[in-house]
């Protein structure tokens, strides 16, 4: 197997005195979609925020393309090709759709290439082109999720971290978002996906990790996890 794109080794993190991550180890290989599933408060979002440098690593190490990114400031990661679509979308509500997209490409300076990428984002998400001069906050939930994804893609990521892309969206829209995720992956972006909708996440992903109270309790091929009776009982409501 190729060298891992992202590797977490026994990562610990906490909010004040509350331990949120108690030794997470996971690997993501180039070209994969990896799903991380788990209940509320299991530490899924914290894991992503720790990778991005927003939550500090207390113990353990994080390697991205072979070099440690532990303790590097968050703003240095998008230039390395590591970007996140944060939970709850977190688009810039009072900036226009186009401005949101341009901020995704903040670290890049080649004007023409950015314009080309914006056009590409518009062709990928035609609704964003229609709404390009609207404020981000006036978009519907699904449109905002698309904007958040398009914004992250503007940084030309090699590894895209996605936090709960299905959150608060209608089932029909959720299906569409997951189709988009699969397509982004097909075009060469590796994806680490955090989801509560375990069924869809494991159907889309190749491999999966199960998180329980800050530690990884299971790790396997996504299809195997989907067939696991314990998983079906705990996360798929059967």
């Amino acid at each position, binding site marked *: 197997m190729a060298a891992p794109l992202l590797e977490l080794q026994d990562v610990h993190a906490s909010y004040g005195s509350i331990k949120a991550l108690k030794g997470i180890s996971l690997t993501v290989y180039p070209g994969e979609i990896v799903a991380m599933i788990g209940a509320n408060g299991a530490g899924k979002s914290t894991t992503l925020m720790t990778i*991005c440098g*927003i939550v500090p690593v207390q113990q353990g190490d994080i390697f991205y393309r072979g070099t440690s990114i532990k303790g590097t*400031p*968050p*703003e*240095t*990661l*998008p*230039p390395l090709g590591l*970007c*996140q679509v*944060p939970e709850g979308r*977190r*688009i*810039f*509500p*009072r*900036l*226009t*759709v*186009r*401005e949101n997209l*341009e*901020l*995704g490409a*903040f*670290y890049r300076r080649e*004007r023409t290439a950015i*314009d080309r990428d914006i056009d590409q984002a518009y062709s990928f998400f035609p609704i964003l082109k229609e709404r*390009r*001069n609207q*404020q981000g906050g006036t978009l519907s939930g699904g449109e905002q999720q698309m904007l958040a994804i398009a*914004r*992250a893609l503007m*940084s030309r990521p090699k590894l895209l971290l996605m936090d709960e892309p299905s959150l608060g969206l209608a089932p029909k829209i959720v299906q569409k978002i997951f189709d988009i995720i699969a397509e982004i992956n097909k075009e060469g972006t590796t994806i680490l996906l955090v989801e509560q909708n375990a069924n869809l996440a494991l159907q889309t992903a190749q491999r999966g990790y199960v998180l329980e109270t800050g530690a990884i309790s299971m790790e396997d091929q996504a299809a195997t996890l989907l067939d696991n009776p314990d998983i079906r009982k705990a996360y798929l409501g059967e």
Partner: protein
Amino acid sequence: MIRECKKVLKPFVLGLLWLLALLWPLLGIHPDGTLSFANAFQVWLYIAAVAFVCVFLYVLNKSGNLDFAARPAAVLRDRVSEAAGRIPSKAWIGLLLGFALIYPQITGRYEQDVAINVLIYVCLGLGLNIVIGLAGMLDLGYIAFYGVGAYSYALLNTNFGISFWFSLPFAAVLAAIAGCIIGYPTLRMRGDYLAIVTLGFGEIVRLILNNWMTLTNGPNGILGIDPPSFYFLSFDGGLSFEHLYLKKLHYLYYIALFLAVFTIIAVRRLNFSRIGRAWESIREDETAAELMGVNTFLLKLLAYAMGAVFAGLAGAFFSARMRFVSPESFTFLESALVLAMVVLGGMASIPGIILGVMALIVLPEVFREFELYRMLAVGGAMTVMMVFKPRGLIPAKRVGTRSEEKEG
């Protein structure tokens, strides 16, 4: 019509009674312990009468009884705004600038004095706008940077005889350094915490100015500051430099105008730059901005420093114009006033802030005859404004044509 009247009547009467309850203790209880009713009641009657006319017109308009006048008025307004829109904005700016240039020729000392005040506060308002309107950090001690600028020039001039123009960059740099000094330890805080810390910082600066007797001469202030001056090449009896102090008010007006125009251009360029957009992203969602690769710490520090620069420039001019500075000019009330100008005019909107400054400087002058009630009137006007136009007089435009996009 009757139905609309009924709907409005109850809140109207309740509001007036409430106003009376508020007004009477203010006007009717005297410091010597005596009570009076007539005065409070008279003022209340005036307000009630004016309010009644307003409400009556509102009800008439709502029920359509004023259509005969309102319709043509609306049509006229649309036509005027359409016609105004056809004149390019460059022409408007030229017209305004032309007016600003001939203004001292057609007005007297008093008007020029008020105009200079407006121009100083335009610099302050636009500087504060960088911090509040763009980067979204509430700064309640902004006037401290104004003070730093003012004392920089005052001290450089009285101690070393350095002229206004040479002091100007020093004042700006010193204010920027002060901005970084406050910024560095506090920018990890957000929202309310930051506001309180900046409030404290503003007071610290004022207290230092007040108590460092050997440097600042304390509450007595610094006297005898030179006004701005110019060197002329003179050819009388050989080549020499002629030194001319610009003491006349209209010279000072032009310097203030120059500073204000410089500030407007600079803030506009910043606003529409990459840095400006990054500031706005921090205002909208700091964590998301960080995730998108915006160096939030550095940019917030830069916002503080840039905001302080314009306050420093305005401060240096202030002391050159007054030829006297004392800590009294840099109280919290001044910070609050500048903040009110920015919020009233419309955050992040340059024409809005200019209008907000004019409103808060010129209106109190207009209401000067009402002396006692003038702050009450201004306060009332602001309350009404915030209820009906919470985003300010001229809200910041948000259509995506600020980038290279020019379609549609």
